[in-house]
């Protein structure tokens, strides 16, 4: 390829004009973000934390560390997406017979960024983070199948998030919604770099997600503790398995579809153009063939979280374990057969629409089974209303409402009325907030002590829950109503007085959500400051039932000194019962040295070059694309060339760490773990 020598040409399309100096909002927002990032980095470097950060986190291949980093990324991006939400609600509150404060081209970027960020960079990392942290612990093993690949997956996801945020200050983001429907997203109608930012961010993070899917399917199917047969796995592992099967089957569809759009935009192909035979409805079909399974990729792990939390805080084994597994697999399968309900209005004909409408209604049966199972788990149990349980119960009620409006939308004639209205917006926020977000917070509060050794403050957690629940209803019930009154989504301004009160009410709702956010932040700060009184000494702060609670909090790098030998469902519950009945732990095992994978910067370096390549592709800086790809290949060879892949933890070290854990357990047995504990802590799994 011809390499131009002039410096101006060397930067491709990138010029100083790319920085939106005339738009104060993104400029100030970007400035603040840059300031915060620089301040954090400066603080890290000046306090000498950089070597620690590099050694223990950035290059870590430990699934627990990677899980924590995923959750952190998810929370930061949740904040970013939430700020977008505030802007949208406030714009609509102001823009009655008025222009509001966001011009249309900016407002369009805000709602596109909001959807993209919330789905790909908030909800996905939160769910994948929880899976990363929990699944190997629950399976009773030491790590995932491919630890270095796992680190690479995380950093590629972070690359995608970074590119989306770079678009805030350099150039622009897409104005095409969270799914860039052609022909609007084609080069002819969206000539700027916004859609390119969207596409490359998603292509790169999509590779990361796909590799996560490969990793977890392999882990769950091939690496489980001895005795951990499929039907002894906790339901969270089952839902993680199904979610990852969906990732493996669905994410290539996203990659292929976006690649076709990229070919259209960059090389003048005609996949989706409205000339030369292109077929834009093919994009809609393909993107939803990924998009609908994606919904279940998010919500299945959420169902898994609730299936762990509800039994623990009800003091009972999960009701209908096998029906839960069957329902999960059923949803996994049927989620691929309903995609057309996203565009009934395409006009595929009555028979096609009816088929997909019925399939959509049927998928609710699987979810219904689960809802009843959770309720029957609570029935007759000794329910403790701790924060994770509150999130779960809030989910049960709210998600059911969202499910019912979903079944309503599944009826094609009704959908023709409600398509693209705020009713639809309210519906999917109803299921995603109540399903995925509530699950994320339930899981976060539930597993936080396992990760950090101390619990989160209950009072602030409960306040966050109640504000979130109230915020949800105050925001989205009005949107249901105004959707029924005919207000369509994505309106930058409107003139109909009928809608005005509902839009204002939704604006109040977002204020309540802001209170919930404040409570979350305060909860974290208070908990860290008061960590000594919230300390979890035994490793089992909630009286848990699955294997992760048999480890110390936080668990050692190798998780289990000796792989547990699983005898049935809820293995840890039985270990605990036996310890109390016999008033002693099982005999001390014969400690052996443990081989663990060595840390590796491969993931981080790969992601660095992926960022460079992605940025260069967005701005047509072709020489840099070549450099980035060549360096990525060099990293691959360099990684493949290393001779020592593992390091050994000596038997004495293993013994020392595990004896400390056993000592804490023995103290607990001597003080609290008596016969009364058995009678006061509900039923075992032997019924």
């Amino acid at each position: 390829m011809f390499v131009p020598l002039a410096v101006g040409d060397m930067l491709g399309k990138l010029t100083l004009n790319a920085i939106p100096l005339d738009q104060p909002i993104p400029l100030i927002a970007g400035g603040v973000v840059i300031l915060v990032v620089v301040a954090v980095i400066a603080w890290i470097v000046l306090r000498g934390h950089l070597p620690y950060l590099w050694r223990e986190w950035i290059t870590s291949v430990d699934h627990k560390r990677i899980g924590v980093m995923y959750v952190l990324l998810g929370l930061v991006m949740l904040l970013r997406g939430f700020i977008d939400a505030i802007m949208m609600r406030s714009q609509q509150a102001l823009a009655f017979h008025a222009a509001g404060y966001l011009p249309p081209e900016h407002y369009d970027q805000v709602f596109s960024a909001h959807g993209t960020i919330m789905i790909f960079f908030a909800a996905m990392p939160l769910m994948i983070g929880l899976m990363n942290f929990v699944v190997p612990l629950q399976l009773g093993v030491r790590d995932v199948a491919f630890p270095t690949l796992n680190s690479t997956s995380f950093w590629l996801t972070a690359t995608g998030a970074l590119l989306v945020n770079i678009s805030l200050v350099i150039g622009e983001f897409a104005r095409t919604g969270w799914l860039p429907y052609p022909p609007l997203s084609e080069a002819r109608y969206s000539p700027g770099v916004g859609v390119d930012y969207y596409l490359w961010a998603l292509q790169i993070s999509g590779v990361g997600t796909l590799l996560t899917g490969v990793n977890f399917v392999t882990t769950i199917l091939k690496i489980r503790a001895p005795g951990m047969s499929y039907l002894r796995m906790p339901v969270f592992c089952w839902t993680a398995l199904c979610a990852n099967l969906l990732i493996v089957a669905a994410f290539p569809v996203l990659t292929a579809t976006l690649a076709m759009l990229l070919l259209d935009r960059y090389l003048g192909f005609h996949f989706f153009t409205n000339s030369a035979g292109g077929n834009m409805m093919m994009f809609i079909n393909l993107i939803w063939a990924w998009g609908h399974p994606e919904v279940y990729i998010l919500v299945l792990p959420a169902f898994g979280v609730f299936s762990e939390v509800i039994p623990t805080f009800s003091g009972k084994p999960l009701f209908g374990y096998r029906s839960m597994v069957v329902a999960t697999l059923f949803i996994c399968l049927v989620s691929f057969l309903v995609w057309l309900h996203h565009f009934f209005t395409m006009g595929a004909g009555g028979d096609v629409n009816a088929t997909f409408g019925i399939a959509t209604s049927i998928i609710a049966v699987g979810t219904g089974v689960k809802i009843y199972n959770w309720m029957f788990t609570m029935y007759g149990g000794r329910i403790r209303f701790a924060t994770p349980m509150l999130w779960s119960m809030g989910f049960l009620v709210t998600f059911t409402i969202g499910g019912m409006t979903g079944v309503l939308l599944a009826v094609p004639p009704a959908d023709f009325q409600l398509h693209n209205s705020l009713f639809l917006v309210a519906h999917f926020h109803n299921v995603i907030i109540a399903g995925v977000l509530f699950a994320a917070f339930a899981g976060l509060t539930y597993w936080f002590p396992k990760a950090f050794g101390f619990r989160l403050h209950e009072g602030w957690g409960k306040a966050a829950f109640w504000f979130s629940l109230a915020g949800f209803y105050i925001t989205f019930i009005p949107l249901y109503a105004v959707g029924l009154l005919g207000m369509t989504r994505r309106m930058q301004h409107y003139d109909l007085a009928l809608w005005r009160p509902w839009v204002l009410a939704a604006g109040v709702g977002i204020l309540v959500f802001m209170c919930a956010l404040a409570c979350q932040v305060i909860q974290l700060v208070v908990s860290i400051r008061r960590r000594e009184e919230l300390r979890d000494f035994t490793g089992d702060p909630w009286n848990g039932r699955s294997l992760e609670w048999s480890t110390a909090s936080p668990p050692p790098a190798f998780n289990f000194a000796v792989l547990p030998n699983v005898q049935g469902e809820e293995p840890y519950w039985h270990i605990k019962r036996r310890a109390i009945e016999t008033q002693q732990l099982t005999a001390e095992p014969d400690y052996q040295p443990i081989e663990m994978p060595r840390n590796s910067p491969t993931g981080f370096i790969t992601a660095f070059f992926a960022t460079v390549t992605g940025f260069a592709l967005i701005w047509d800086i072709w020489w840099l694309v070549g450099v980035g790809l060549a360096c990525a290949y060099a990293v691959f060879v360099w990684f493949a060339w290393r001779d020592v892949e593992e390091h050994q933890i000596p038997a004495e070290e293993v013994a020392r760490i595990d004896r400390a854990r056993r000592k804490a357990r023995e103290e607990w047995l001597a003080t609290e773990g008596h016969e009364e504990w058995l009678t006061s802590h509900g039923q075992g799994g032997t019924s």
Partner: protein
Amino acid sequence: MSAVDTVSFRRTRDLDPYKLGHREAGEHGLATGHGEGGPASKRVIVGYGFWIFLLSDVVLFSCLFAAHAVLQTATAGGPSGRELFNPWSIAIETACLLASSFTCGLSAVATGVRSQIWTQLTLAITGLLGLAFLLLEAHDFAGMVAAGAGPTRSAFLSSLFAVVGCHGCHVTAGLLWLGTMMAQVFFKGFRPNILRRLLCFNLFWHVLDIIWVALFTIVYLIGEGR
């Protein structure tokens, strides 16, 4: 459900380390990586994981095939497959690729007996056949573009170039990988991790062949009749 903690899994590692399909009576589900048998061996994990990845790659191709099936007649007044395809060139490409798959299989045999020279030789032939395939394909593409039948001419040609080109990109990546593997085998010998990578490379190369068979059928055989 019993809570008695007896170590019930016996293994006869020496005879059949992975117990692949050779379960003895009464040991149902105790092979590693199955049922209650505990974690699988690293070789099984790596091979299995790579199969999962390959399946995802097949899904990616299936989308491109679907797009091509939709757009196969969308020639927008431009040339159709019947006018464009050169059956001889495609036949030679196919022969190169199928032969390379055969030599790739031979390399697995040579690796099995730990023969450095035969492994290198068969891998080199595999690579050369792959390269010949790529050059022929590039030649075909260049001819089509020169004749005004490039990917921008019609949706049919867009999808043709995309699906065939995507396969070509995979072959290119495979060649890079193959070269890296030859160097690794040469410098590091038949270490367990190198053997696992060779296994994965073999899987990859054979799957490219399978994709080509589908591509030959859907794009060229059916396209020839349109």
